[in-house]
C-alpha cells in the first residue's frame, strides 16, 4: 500500500478540439483534503471526473491507490469501488427508497448480503443525521437531505477516497450548512477528499491544500492561509476578489 492516494502525471483531456485538461500533475497523499476552485469551464469538474474515469483521458497516467487507471477496463471497476462520488444534482435513484439507494451497489458489486448491507446503510444514514428517512423516496426529501443521502450512499461502498463535484451548488442557502457539516465530519475522520466547491469557508476550515484552476491548467496550489492570504497569480487574485 502506497502513501499516495492519487497520482496524476501529464494528464490531458480534450472535448473535440477543446483542450479541457492541460498537462495536469497532481499528487494526493492519503488522508489529504483538497479543495479545487476556479471559474466555470476551468476544468475542475472534469479533473475529478477523470479520477473514477467518468471522463476518459487522452494521454497521461492516473494511479489511484496504487492501481493504474489507464491500463484498461478491469482496473476501472476496482478503482470505482474505492472512490465515492457526490454530484451537484444528487443523482439519487428516484424509483428506490433511500435505503434501497444505499444498498444497491454494495449488494451488486461487493456481493454483500442484504441484511449486512442494510445495517451498514442505516449506520451511515445515522452519521449523516437522517436515519428516520430510510424508507422514504428521494422526492419526499429536501435538497439538503437528498445530498446527505447521496453522501451516505457513497460511503456505503466503504470508499478510501471521496470526490465531491460542487455538492452545495444546487442547494438553497439554508441547506448548504447541513451538507458542509457532514463533509466536515468526514474530513475530521481522515477521509481522503477532493472537493470542487466555491465554499471558501469550507476550504479554510478543512482543506490541507487549495487548488486554483483556469482554462484546464492548475494555476496555483497552496495551503489555505497562503492561498487566501497571499495569492500569487493575477487570475487567482481576480477570482478571489470576485467571490469574496
Amino acid at each position: 500500500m502506497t502513501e499516495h492516494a492519487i497520482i496524476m502525471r501529464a494528464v490531458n483531456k480534450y472535448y473535440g478540439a477543446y483542450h479541457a485538461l492541460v498537462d495536469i500533475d497532481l499528487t494526493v497523499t492519503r488522508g489529504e483534503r483538497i479543495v479545487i476552485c476556479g471559474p466555470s469551464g476551468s476544468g475542475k469538474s472534469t479533473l475529478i471526473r477523470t479520477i473514477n474515469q467518468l471522463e476518459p483521458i487522452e494521454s497521461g497516467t492516473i494511479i489511484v491507490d496504487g492501481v493504474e487507471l489507464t491500463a484498461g477496463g478491469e482496473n476501472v471497476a476496482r478503482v470505482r469501488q474505492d472512490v465515492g462520488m457526490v454530484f451537484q444534482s444528487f443523482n439519487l435513484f428516484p424509483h428506490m427508497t433511500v435505503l434501497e439507494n444505499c444498498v444497491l451497489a454494495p449488494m451488486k458489486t461487493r456481493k454483500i448480503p442484504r441484511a449486512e448491507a442494510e445495517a451498514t446503510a442505516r449506520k451511515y444514514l445515522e452519521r449523516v443525521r437522517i436515519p428516520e428517512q430510510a424508507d422514504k423516496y428521494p422526492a419526499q426529501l429536501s435538497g439538503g437531505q437528498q445530498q446527505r443521502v447521496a453522501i451516505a450512499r457513497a460511503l456505503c461502498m466503504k470508499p478510501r477516497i471521496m470526490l465531491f463535484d460542487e455538492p452545495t451548488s444546487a442547494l438553497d442557502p439554508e441547506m448548504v450548512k447541513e451538507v458542509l457539516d457532514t463533509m466536515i465530519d468526514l474530513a475530521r475522520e481522515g477521509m481522503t477528499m477532493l472537493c470542487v466547491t466555491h465554499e471558501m469557508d469550507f476550504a479554510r476550515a478543512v482543506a490541507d491544500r487549495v487548488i486554483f484552476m483556469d482554462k484546464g491548467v492548475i494555476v496555483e496550489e497552496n495551503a489555505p492561509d497562503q492561498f487566501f492570504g497571499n495569492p500569487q497569480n493575477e487570475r487567482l487574485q481576480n477570482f478571489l476578489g470576485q467571490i469574496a
Partner: protein
Amino acid sequence: MIREFSSADLMFIVSAVRWTLILSGIAFLGGALGGLAVALARTAQGRLRRRIAAGFIQVFQGTPLLMQLFLVYFGLAVVGLPIDPLLAAAVALTLHASAYLGEIWRGAIEAVPPGQTEAATALSLSYKDRMRHVVLPQAMRLATAPTVGFLVQLIKGTSLASIIGFTELTRAGQIINNATFKPFLVFGTVAALYFVLCWPLSLLARRMEARMRLAVTR
C-alpha cells in the same frame, strides 16, 4: 350462389378474433424481446451496434408493413422453410414490432437523465446492473403509455395478414362477404370487433399518460 348472413357466419367472424389476438400476442412478445435488444444496441457505446440497430429501424419504419409481409412470406420459401401464413405473419409482425418498440424504448432510455447512469457508474455498477436496476425501471415508466399505444397499432396491423391468406378477423370477414355479399354488414361487424379490442387499450394508454404527467410534475 349468394346466401343470407346467418348467426353461423357471425360466429365464424367472432371466433376469428382469437387468431387476431394470438398473432398480436406473438408479435408483441417477440417484438418486446427484439425491441429491447434494438433499444439497448441503439444506446450502446459501440458505434457498429448503434449503426446496425439504426439501419434495422430505418428499414422497417421506412417500408410498408404489407411489403414486409410479402417479403417474409415469399422469403420463407427461398430459405427452404414451408410457406405457412401464420409463421410468415408472426415473423414479419415481430420484426415490425421490434423496430417500432426499439425506437420507442430508445427514446425512453435516453430520456432518463444522464446523471443516473453517471451515479450508477461511479458506484461501480456493471452495465447490466445499471440497466436492470437504474435505467430501465425509469425508462419503463416513461415508455408504458406509448407502448400500449403501439399495441393498438399492432392489433390493427395484423389485419394485413389477411392478404397472405392467414385467416384472422379481417380474412374471416372477407370469406363471409364472398359468400353472403353483405359487405357493409360484414365489415361493419369486423370493424366493431377491432374497436372492442382496441378501445379499452386506448383508454388505458390515455390513463397511463395522465398518471405519468402527475408523476413528472410531482
